[in-house]
């Protein structure tokens, strides 16, 4: 029942998104613009600064993700579908998981384009260990989506939601970003620093677990109003 | 016409000091030294005093804000009480 509800919510969001692809395209373009701005800041005499690619990648994911979160829940608020969802006889936590999975899928599609692009533009050897890179991106993105979906859902009815989401989200996701960036840097070293990368992946996994448990606990009392 | 000429001359005159005050010639070599002369070492006492004073000021400021807010609330409460008691009589 729980998983079925979550997947239903995911399918609903997917169906809406596939029709217009509005959020996907705009998020992708925003991520590209981010990368452009960073290229101006972090490239010196045509050469990218060392390890800049890792930071740029994760910042672009975070900024684009914040926008995508805001827009996804804004769509819910506009159509007043959030209230309908909450009124449905489905476990609230399942609704949350469904929305969270939607964000993960959206960010995953963005990263499919973003990662090769950053590797190309900043001449970074990101694909030396593709499996580890995939694990790193997955754990980092899931962690971000877990925290972000909860906060965005909480803020849906707040007056200053547009600016409050980054204010609340960025400090909370700093541990995730540190893990992601340092793990990616470990993967781009000339002999790939596998032990470090694996340590960061495990750390990210632990953080994801903690955040997910906390989010599942707090979603119910937070949305009862 | 005269005014314009005067403006140009005045602007050029203001630029003169900028051209005159060029930076001095750069150092050509470094000279090592064993210990920093006492005048260059950071004095610790001002930092310590600054830290201590900051804590005092921060704590007092916070206490003052509580005092102020409490005063406002109590004024409002008294005003409400006064409004209610005449109507009760």
């Amino acid at each position, binding site marked *: 029942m729980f998983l079925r509800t979550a997947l239903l919510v995911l399918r609903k969001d997917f169906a809406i998104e596939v029709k217009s692809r509005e959020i996907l395209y705009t998020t992708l373009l925003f991520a590209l613009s981010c990368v452009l701005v960073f290229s101006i800041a972090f490239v010196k005499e045509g050469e990218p600064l060392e390890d800049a690619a890792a930071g740029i990648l994760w910042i672009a994911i975070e900024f684009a993700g914040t926008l995508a979160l805001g827009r996804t829940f804004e769509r819910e608020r506009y159509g007043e579908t959030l209230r309908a969802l909450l009124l449905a006889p489905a476990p609230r936590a399942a609704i949350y998981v469904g929305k969270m999975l939607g964000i993960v899928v959206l960010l995953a599609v963005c990263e499919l384009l973003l990662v090769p692009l950053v590797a190309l533009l900043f001449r970074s050897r990101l694909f030396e260990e593709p499996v580890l890179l995939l694990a790193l991106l997955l754990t980092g993105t899931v962690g971000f989506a877990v*925290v972000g979906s*909860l*906060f965005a859902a*909480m*803020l849906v*009815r*707040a*007056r*200053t939601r547009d600016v*409050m989401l980054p*204010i*609340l989200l*960025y*400090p*909370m996701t*700093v*541990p995730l970003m*540190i893990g992601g960036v340092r793990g990616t840097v470990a993967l781009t070293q000339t002999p790939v620093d596998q032990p470090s990368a694996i340590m960061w992946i495990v750390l990210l996994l632990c953080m994801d677990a*903690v*955040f997910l448990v*906390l989010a599942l*606990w*707090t979603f119910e*009392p*937070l949305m009862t*109003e | 016409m005269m005014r314009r000429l005067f403006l140009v001359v005045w602007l050029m005159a203001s630029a003169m000091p900028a051209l005159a005050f060029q930076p001095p010639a750069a150092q050509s070599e470094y000279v090592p030294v064993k210990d920093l002369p006492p005048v260059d070492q*950071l004095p*610790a*006492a001002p*930092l*310590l005093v*600054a*830290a*201590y004073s*900051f*804590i*005092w000021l*921060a*704590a007092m400021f*916070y*206490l003052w804000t*509580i005092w102020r*807010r*409490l005063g406002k*609330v*109590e004024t*409002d*409460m008294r005003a*409400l*009480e006064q*409004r*209610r008691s005449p109507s009760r009589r």
Partner: protein
Amino acid sequence: MRKAFFPLLLVTSAMFAYAPVVIAHADYESTMGLVQKVMYFHAPSGMVMLISAVVCGVASALYLWKKDPAADRVAIAAAELAALFGLIVLVTGPLWARKAWGVWWVWEARLTMSFVGWLITVGYLFVRKYGGPGSDKLAAGLAVFGTANVPFIYVSVNIWRTMHPMTTVVPTLQPGMRGAFWFSALTLFMLYGLLLAARVHLERQRTALDQLYLAEED
């Protein structure tokens, strides 16, 4: 209980004023000299900040699940104090670091996580102030998440060996420093308790005022 407030405040202020004397008589630290004495306030302020963050988290959790309004009052008071003592830590730390390490700031584990923790606390206060209706529940959720950050801050210096002194420094203080440290710590803990009580009192009065307004409308 309320009558004890002003006498205790006087005692705490006196202790605070006397603290420099106690600290001046403490032993000097061999490598850092005079500036290490900032530690007598910096470390206890850090302890108070972490304690306050945990108090806020626990109170917020109680408010979220038991819907106890008293818990909400304690939560906001603890958050304001965590922000205050966090600011004290973040200002006194660099003042010490400038002399001891040569730089005002360094992006290492504990400093970064402390800064992040402080930002989360300030975010809590912003949500309470600008969040609109329902912001108390929202902020409580944020506090619960933020409290998960606290163990990271405490443990970070032991896992990542960096410039910041490790937590083992405090239990292993030599007798010459121990007295001064615990005197300053006691002063700050008392100050924290008093400020917390004052703030909770303010919040209780505000709730009473709101109820008076509501009763008037009826």
